């Protein structure tokens, strides 16, 4: 079934035309972590609590440089831990500042308690997580950290490229300040964080027009109208608080989609919550991916006309409607093969769990493939292996490249 490479398949990429693609942008070569830091600069983050952890550290290092170079007017504070980083982020957000920080793996696990608090306080902020798993020490790419925090009430986006990380951070601020729910933007360790890519860097005023200065929200300190924030909330009220959170969360999918389109109108690069590639009635199998594995899969499926791809960009709240729509053209016996770079201690990985919930009642054949936890490489050959194995109707959840 593998299609021979035709000479046509590469004509689209013409570097010369590319350079005129986005007005009011500068093209640069940049590592993902620096793109994230530059995004925080473009968004004029005002408060940055910092703590080092590989592979995130270069984000906060670059932010420190940006502050000292006078390119970013932010209060930058070295905290004593990620627990304190997130607690300080919470304080500054209640104080009405635009907050940015970054963490990874152990840092995110450590901050778990405060993640919950920030979400329950309905505080706007954007945080980057560079995914790595828990001890035994491992600093490589893995999404178990952020996926394990998916139930804390944070919105989560996963970026396929550094450009997407940069653009998503800008969109995330618009989203978080509109709906008052914190947002985590996740990028892959090393494959993105430390890999240089072409980046289109927008002008500051382009960003300013898209993202106006932060406004005081319902959860900001007002010295003239003192309040108590987060005190004892009796059952009836607690239940109501969750109800209003739930209602807000249910709007996120539509608002995020709208912001992605709006971003396209401003910057020339539209985004959607999910992306369907080659999903039609003749598609026999689709891969479901997050982050940079998507790019590898894109490359592989170019050689397989009967194979499609579903990329998830918004992960939490899970874009149920968009996923259902994306898969609607599939025939009934199409196969859904999910690539997991996470292990959450259960039979199925995090993506499969969400896909099953979203597709409840439909009868796609879904197979879950654990591939590349702890940073193990997922090269095109592994993706091909997954495709072949999925056609053989394996167990519902299996591992590749382990024996």
């Amino acid at each position: 079934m593998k299609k021979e490479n035709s000479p046509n398949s590469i004509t689209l990429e013409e570097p010369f035309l590319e350079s005129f693609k986005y007005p009011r942008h500068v093209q640069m070569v940049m590592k993902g972590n620096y793109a994230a830091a530059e995004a925080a600069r473009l968004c004029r983050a005002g408060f940055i609590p910092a703590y080092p952890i590989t592979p995130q550290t270069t984000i906060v290092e670059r932010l420190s440089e940006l502050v000292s170079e006078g390119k970013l007017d932010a209060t930058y504070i070295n905290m004593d831990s990620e627990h304190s980083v997130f607690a300080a982020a919470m304080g500054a957000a209640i104080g009405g500042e635009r907050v940015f920080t970054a963490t990874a793996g152990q840092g995110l696990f450590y901050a778990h308690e405060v993640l919950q608090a920030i979400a329950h306080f309905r505080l706007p902020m954007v945080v980057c997580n560079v995914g790595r798993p828990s001890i035994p020490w491992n600093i490589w790419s893995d999404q178990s950290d952020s996926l394990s925090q998916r139930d804390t009430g944070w919105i989560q986006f996963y970026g396929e490229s550094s450009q997407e990380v940069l653009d998503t951070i800008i969109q995330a601020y618009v989203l978080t300040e509109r709906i008052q729910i914190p947002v985590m933007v996740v990028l892959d360790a090393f494959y993105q964080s430390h890999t240089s890519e072409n980046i289109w860097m927008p002008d500051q005023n382009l960003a300013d027009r898209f993202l106006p200065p932060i406004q005081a929200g319902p959860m900001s300190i007002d010295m003239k109208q003192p309040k108590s924030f987060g005190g004892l909330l009796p059952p009836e009220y607690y239940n109501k608080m969750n109800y209003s959170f739930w209602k807000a969360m249910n709007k996120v999918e539509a608002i995020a989609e709208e912001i992605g389109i709006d971003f396209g109108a401003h910057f020339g690069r539209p985004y959607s919550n999910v992306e369907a590639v080659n999903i039609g009635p003749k598609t026999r199998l689709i891969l479901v991916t997050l982050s940079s594995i998507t790019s590898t899969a894109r490359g592989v499926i170019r050689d397989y006309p009967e194979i499609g791809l579903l990329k998830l960009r918004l992960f939490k709240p899970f874009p149920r409607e968009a996923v259902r729509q994306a898969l609607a053209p599939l025939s009934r016996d199409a196969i859904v093969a999910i690539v997991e770079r996470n292990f959450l201690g259960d039979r199925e990985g995090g993506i499969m769990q969400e896909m099953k919930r979203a597709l409840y009642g439909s009868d796609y054949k879904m197979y879950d493939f654990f591939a590349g936890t702890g940073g193990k490489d997922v090269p095109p050959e592994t993706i091909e292996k997954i495709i072949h194995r999925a056609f053989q109707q394996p167990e519902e959840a299996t591992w590749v490249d382990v024996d």
Partner: protein
Amino acid sequence: MKPALEFLIKDEKVYSGALSCRGCGWSLLVRHLASILGEDTVYVAPASCFSIISGPYPLQELKANLVHTVFAAAPATATGVRAALDRQGKKDTTVVILAGDGGTFDIGLQALSGAAARNENLLYIVNNNGAYMNTGIQSSTATPYGAVTTTNPGEGFKRAWPKDLMGIIAAHNLPYAATASLAFLEDLRQKVEKAKNTKGFRLLMIDGPCPPGHKTDPAMSIHIGRLAVETRLFPLFEVERQDYTINYRPGKNIPVEECMKHQGRFKQLFRPENRQMIEEVQAHTDRYWMRLEMLAGM
């Protein structure tokens, strides 16, 4: 008269109806604090009895903003609040942490040390009632030697010495740290005012009466607090950078047991087989005082 010396609070900065037990130190302390700190204050509170005393939603004890935060991280949350206020030009607003001993000596020590070492412009108040009272009297590292708590398997009382928090704090070389007692209101109120008017990280540790936790008569809270100072169990002193000042030198040498005998949590120490523990507390108290005198004399 200086507001610090107006014990009869005319302009209350708290509403009536604090939800504490009778004879609790927290509510009296906060009432005095608030009367001096005023409304241009943001309070930050980790979990403690004060989280409850300050009122369930939609009630609020304080006539100022109060941010409740997670147990371990009040100084970090306060750091964020401080930074936000500073960025908005509200540099004169006081940011105050109201924490218990558990939230300070134990779970919050790291965040406290971090904020102190950065010399954040924060006022840290620790109401030291010597145990995790809100959860029902469990041992903290502030619990006195020999005190009964609910988490001492075996003998039922604590066999380890409490941490010297003031020593730890002094080691951070701070602009201002002091101890204070509700039985010495003039001293307490002056210290609060001094702390309010000092920039940088300031800490006040207040001896916190707690009738259920200390197994005392609620009517005796202030009397016992006075005895704690008079017996030197709770000395009143200030540390400014490296300089120590003793604020009150008891006239007579009253033995520690005069204070301990009013507190049911020490009852077992008065049994013949444990009496030598009272001697140990006395010796420890005497040495601590001598050390304070030495530091104050330097």
